[in-house]
């Protein structure tokens, strides 16, 4: 045990001595979380739109003013023909075109249905969807105002309460996601790389002939990273809490506890990768290529798992990040207790054990051969 701690201390010295890496290790997550906190959002402000108003009456003018007043749109161009609208989309100068037919007001006041047409650039479905939703909501509100002068009887009014995120902020979604990505990649890459490095430089053999058992060596190498990753967790949580006002409704200790479980899983995965590679280059390629995009896209961080085809919903079950993101959201935003998330916790612990057993097996084979 004493030799183990001596070993861990040696590893700490290595890490602390390399100032540049240390700066990268702690500086990057902060920069990223701040950058993404402000920049990664679905909320539109002032999207450029164009209007082709063939009616030009009081009602259409008022409707256009309403669209602009919402703050979501800014009226950049007016058009006189369909050709011009087509040209505008080809040049990508607008995100959406609003086409108001002739006699818009007259049709409306005569009690018939007045159509307006929204045209979006479907090549970016995210934007297209969001803008149509905004515009529809604004037009509906506009319509209600028009009829409010003579309120209809037998009205069912709905009071919507946005639970957990009253202002519908994107940052609530993405803080758990970015935190997961950072912890996953830093822990898994760091471990696989530090072990591959010893192999590449030939120092691994030196350690293997020492009286320490191979598993002790590996554990000694990863122990410092547990601490570093926990510090990173605290930094990220602090930035998201103080800068972006993302609440921590549940227990802070539970939050740190489940982060620890996730970190252990990532480290175990890093060890597994390192048992399969001999060079830092391939360790890194495997960590990045195999982990980065799947963690981002199959974990529910960016795209809801429910929207995926069924096969991929099953596939998402082997992505560790999925469980961590669920737990983070539950504890941070919903204030859930351990009783709500224990099954996710068990899955992550199971994965950790599985990865460790597999690396142990790889390791023994290597030594035996």
């Amino acid at each position, binding site marked *: 045990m004493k030799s183990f701690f001596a070993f861990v201390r040696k590893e700490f010295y290595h890490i602390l001595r390399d100032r540049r890496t240390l700066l*990268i290790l702690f500086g990057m997550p902060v920069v*990223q979380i701040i*950058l993404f906190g*402000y*920049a*990664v*959002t*679905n*909320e*539109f402000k002032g*999207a450029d739109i164009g209007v082709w108003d063939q009616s030009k009456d009081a009602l259409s003018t008022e409707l256009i003013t309403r669209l602009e007043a919402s703050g979501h749109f800014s009226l950049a161009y007016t058009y006189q023909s369909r050709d011009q609208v087509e040209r505008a*989309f080809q040049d990508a100068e607008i995100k959406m075109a609003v086409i108001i037919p002739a006699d818009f007001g007259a049709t*409306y006041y005569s*009690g018939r*249905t007045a*159509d307006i047409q929204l045209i*979006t*650039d*479907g*090549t970016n*479905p*995210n934007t*297209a*969807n*969001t803008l*149509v939703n905004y515009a*529809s909501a604004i*037009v509906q509100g506009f319509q209600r105002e028009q009829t409010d002068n003579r309120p*209809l009887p*037998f*009205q*069912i*009014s709905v009071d*919507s309460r946005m*639970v*957990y995120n009253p202002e*519908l902020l994107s940052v*609530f979604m993405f803080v758990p996601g970015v935190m997961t*990505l950072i912890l996953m990649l830093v822990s898994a*890459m760091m471990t696989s*790389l530090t072990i591959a*490095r010893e192999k590449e430089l030939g120092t691994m053999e030196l350690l293997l002939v020492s009286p320490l058992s191979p598993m002790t060596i590996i554990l000694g190498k990863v122990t410092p990273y547990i601490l570093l990753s926990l510090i990173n967790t605290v930094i990220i949580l602090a930035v998201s809490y103080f800068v972006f006002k993302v609440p921590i409704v549940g227990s802070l200790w539970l939050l740190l506890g489940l982060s620890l479980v996730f970190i252990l899983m990532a480290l175990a995965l890093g060890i597994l990768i390192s048992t*399969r590679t001999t*060079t830092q*280059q*391939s360790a890194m*390629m*495997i960590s*990045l*290529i*195999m982990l980065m995009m799947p963690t981002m*896209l199959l974990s529910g961080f960016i*795209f809801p798992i*429910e*929207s*995926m085809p069924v096969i991929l919903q099953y*596939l998402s079950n082997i992505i560790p990040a999925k469980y961590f993101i669920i737990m983070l*959201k539950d504890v941070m935003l*919903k204030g859930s207790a351990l009783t*709500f998330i224990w099954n996710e916790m068990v899955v992550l612990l199971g994965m950790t054990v599985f990865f460790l057993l597999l690396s142990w097996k790889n390791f023994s084979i290597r030594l035996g051969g």
Partner: protein
Amino acid sequence: MRTILVLIRKELLQVFRNKAMLPLLTVVPVVQLIVLSFAASNEVKDLKVAIYDQDHSTYSRRLTQKFAASTYFLLSGAPQNLQDAELLLQKDEADIVLLIPAGMERDLYRLQRADMQLLVNAVNGSKGGIANGYANRVIQDFNREVRAEIAPQILAMTAGQGRIEVNFQHWYNPLLDYRTFMVPGILGTLVTILILVLTAMNVVREREIGTIEQLNVTPIRKYQLILGKLLPFLLIGLFDLAIGLIAGKLIFNIPIIGSIWLIFGFCVLNLLAVLAIGMLISTMADTQQQAMFIAWFFMMIFILMGGLFTPIDSMPQWAQYLTYPNPIAHFVEVMRQVMLKGSTFADVQEHFVAMAIVSLFFGTLAVWTYRKTGA
């Protein structure tokens, strides 16, 4: 020229000699492209709605039926008290809970108005907003039906007041198929990751092993060395892009309306920018470990601020400026324009210019730092 060809062949030999590398450069990106493209959809469907019906009236049952019949919703529960209702939200077993108060039907008759409450799980803000919109639409439809039944004369009352109907059309992609947008974007992202990592590790690796010194005492010129290191990765990148585009065409049938030469021309320039950034990282880093972390840092920023997952236009202005050197942002935009809309060179030339500037700037910087460390 021969020196450069020799250097290229040497790099390719080294890359493919590594057994782990061949699948990482060929099969893995294609498989990921296919799998992830299926996953990448923001389409909101099958929203889980739980209805806490305290009214137990004909109307409340009809409203429940209306939700069940809607294509957007799945009935997922009928909680019997508020705690249960909130628990469903907390456990993610409901996206929306509709609370129908006792006496809803009676109020509607007697007071000519009734209230309801929706609890929307808004952890995912945009999904919550959309779910709320859909639910409101269902309730409004129901409201209109009921009103027409109770008081047909209302219709007369609203004479002289029409309705505004919003129609929408999504051009170039009428069904808002996410894949046509995502396949080129994910492809570009995967290739960028690959190439950035390969180049970022390359020079620093030769330095760590000591072979760079051997090269420095040979008559190889600096430009030959740089070209000899750039071109192999450019080839690998172009190869992956070509395979990916073919796979996208065959499997997802993504349209390629614009010129294929324009697409590949841009790919070359785009890859050069990635290579220049990778080279700079490699010449600046002391160790492969550092190179990897710096590469990873920029990769995260490139990907999450590349306009693929959240629109660049929704970023604050200062953040939009930051996307100018981002190769993924330009790639996503150009592929979208040329492949799906058939834009011509004139339409996308500003992206060519941007990538040329980025390549030149970072390339010069890389050569300069290489000189400095080489001396």
